[in-house]
């Protein structure tokens, strides 16, 4: 059982939780995730560790309500507990002094992007962050990102905040303007696919963090498999970050729809 210490609503469908997990707080690194369950018959849901406080023994999670299980989680309040949580899982992000980093976040993907932005900044890099969302209300972590980035560009589909347009438009502008040494893109798979196509065109090395379907998160089931450079990899132990230019995104998009019917049903039932 992990107690929820604080809960905030970041937007209509996105909640931030600060959760007790002293061991995980201590051992986690940027890029790691946890798997948690709500309820004894709950699904195992993977979520990125956004931040941690070793002294308080807590970690921060940000979750978007997209289906039955994430909704259950979003309904919990401070003082209540998660049924269980395990982590930190996955490989940590390779953080080093690269020069200029271009960080691209789409939707709730901004949450997993945050610890990476922070770590690259702390490692002495120049960090330019592009945040993208459908509209103003859905832009999350803008202030936190500003604190840890040299520049933040906000892009919205409807122009209600920042500039009107897609994340790739903001990104292309930066790449054309100055030399970018490495790009990190996190968001919906389709967004990452287009970011990868863009940075490939300009030969900018790019990492993406995949949010495949998972069960155990320890390499036991293979539900999270993805084709990277023609080889099958397990996202939970070989990733979740991979070289964006080597990923078979079409297969990934297909695999993420594997349980679409069952999920739709679950959402309507509950």
């Amino acid at each position, binding site marked *: 059982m992990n107690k929820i210490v604080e809960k905030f609503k970041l937007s209509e469908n996105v909640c931030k939780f600060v959760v007790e997990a002293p*061991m*995980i707080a201590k*051992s986690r690194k940027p890029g790691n995730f946890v798997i948690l*369950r709500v*309820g004894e*018959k*709950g*699904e*195992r849901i993977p979520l990125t560790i956004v931040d941690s406080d070793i002294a308080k023994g807590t970690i921060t999670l940000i979750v978007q309500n997209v289906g*039955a*299980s994430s909704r*259950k989680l979003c309904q919990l309040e401070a003082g209540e507990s998660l*049924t*269980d*949580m*395990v*982590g*930190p*899982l996955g490989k940590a992000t390779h953080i080093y002094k690269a020069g200029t980093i271009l960080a691209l976040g789409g939707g709730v993907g901004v949450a997993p992007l945050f610890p990476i932005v922070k770590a690259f900044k702390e490692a002495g890099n120049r960090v330019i962050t592009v945040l993208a969302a459908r509209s103003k209300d859905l832009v999350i972590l803008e202030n936190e990102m500003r604190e840890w980035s040299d520049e933040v560009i906000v892009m919205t589909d409807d122009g209600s905040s920042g500039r009107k347009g897609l994340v790739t438009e903001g990104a292309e502008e930066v790449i054309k303007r100055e030399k970018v040494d490495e790009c990190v893109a996190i968001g919906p798979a389709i967004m990452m696919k287009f970011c990868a196509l863009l940075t490939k065109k300009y030969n900018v090395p790019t990492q993406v963090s995949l949010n495949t379907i998972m*069960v*155990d998160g*320890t*390499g*036991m*089931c*293979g*539900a999270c*498999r*993805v*084709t990277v450079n023609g080889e*099958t990899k397990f996202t939970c*132990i070989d990733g979740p970050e991979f070289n964006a230019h080597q990923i078979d995104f079409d*297969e990934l998009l*297909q*695999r993420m*729809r*594997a*349980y679409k019917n*069952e*999920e739709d049903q*679950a959402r309507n039932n509950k």
Partner: protein
Amino acid sequence: MTEYTEMLNRERNAEWRVALRNSVPNKERIAIERVKMTEVEPHERIKSQTCEVNCGLTAEQAQREASRCMDCVTPTCVEGCPVSINIPKFVKQIEVGKFLDAAATLKEFSALPAVCGRVCPQEKQCEIKCFYSQKMKKEPVAIGYLERFAADYERLSGKIQIPKVEARNGIKVAAIGSGPSALSFAGDMIKFGYEVTVFEALHEIGGVLKYGIPEFRLPNSVVDVELENLKEMGVNFEKNFVVGRTASFDDLKELGYQAFFVGSGAGLPNFMNIPGENLNGVMSSNEYLTRVNLMYANQSDSDTPVMLGKRVAVIGGGNTAMDAVRTSKRLGAERSIIIYRRSLDEMPARLEEIKHAQEEGIEFMNLANPVEYLADAGGRVAKVRLQRMELGEPDASGRRRPVAIEGDIVEIEVDLVIVAIGVSPNPLIPACLAGLKMSRYGTIEVNEETMQSSIPEIFAGGDIVRGGATVILAMGDGRRAAASMHRYLQEKHKK
């Protein structure tokens, strides 16, 4: 004579055993037919994932079966058991109706008799070495059934004997993983007086016994009782704890753990790396069985989904393949097909499982090997292309090698494919222990007698050492590791 055979002999000469032997002539014993296990009818049992197929023996059946055993001078059956259970002793205790004593005898050797009585490949171990099979070409004494009977009797009687444990000695040791090897290790170490913690990555204790083997073969309640016993003896369980991730070995040493038993299993599923294997609807047996057995995906109140299929193909011929194919039948498949590249005779699955599968209407396509999966318009698997095989020369394992029949390719329609072609050792632990000596198959190398690895305070056993093996071998490893870790720590503390 070894110490062990001396002990067997001494026990055999106990007054009651001698009297029992003399009370019934062997000719009469031999004339009794081997008991038949009562089973739930196939059409009934396939309606439920949890209905146990084998019903167990009645006391009367058990006693009659026990009386077949001739209490041999040289009980060869014992040689076939990886943990050398004193088989004639517990069998004779059943014959005279001392069922709780029989259970106690079993527990001297095995931490999980109710489990082994159900899942041991007896026909290849103790029973094949029975005098009946060896010398008389008759059906062996049903040692496995009797073992299950005694263990179940004790459990259902509510008079479970919790083994005595030594006073705590204050030395902390850890088991990593909670499969049969780690559980039997923990059981012995707690008896010796250590402070024992079992760390498990998943949210349930039991390893393959929980997430792999389905309830129709091994009910969770049977495993849970054993776990309760260990808890009562003082074993501490930490779930949701991945050693190497949640905390490193160094962190654990800082917390006072002085030695470790690694029983992390062979959890990494193998795939064949053929085209279409990443299509939706193709998954590993681990994924399929975990969704159903650990996450209860087949139950309506579970949040975890599982893909259902009308035409299900399971690739492989081992226990895992049988469990997966029989599960698919229970989840409503119209056709459930085993596809295996060798012949029926060469299947590694237990005979009983193959027989049960056949009764349940599972189809067997032997001498066929998938070469490609083809998708429907929605991207889900719709067909599998199979290469037909024939048997060639024997290979290293002594089995005849399957060879492709050039050009003989067939396609069958499927909507769910479960790949059950084996597992590789879980690489998580080795990856975080620099200097740990590994084999080229990714297993941890240990001294076979002491189960000690190249790092003195680290012992290992079960599938992480053997690759995929059996419950009883894993348990035997756990016990041997406990005995030698005990010696190692006593030595260390003498200094």
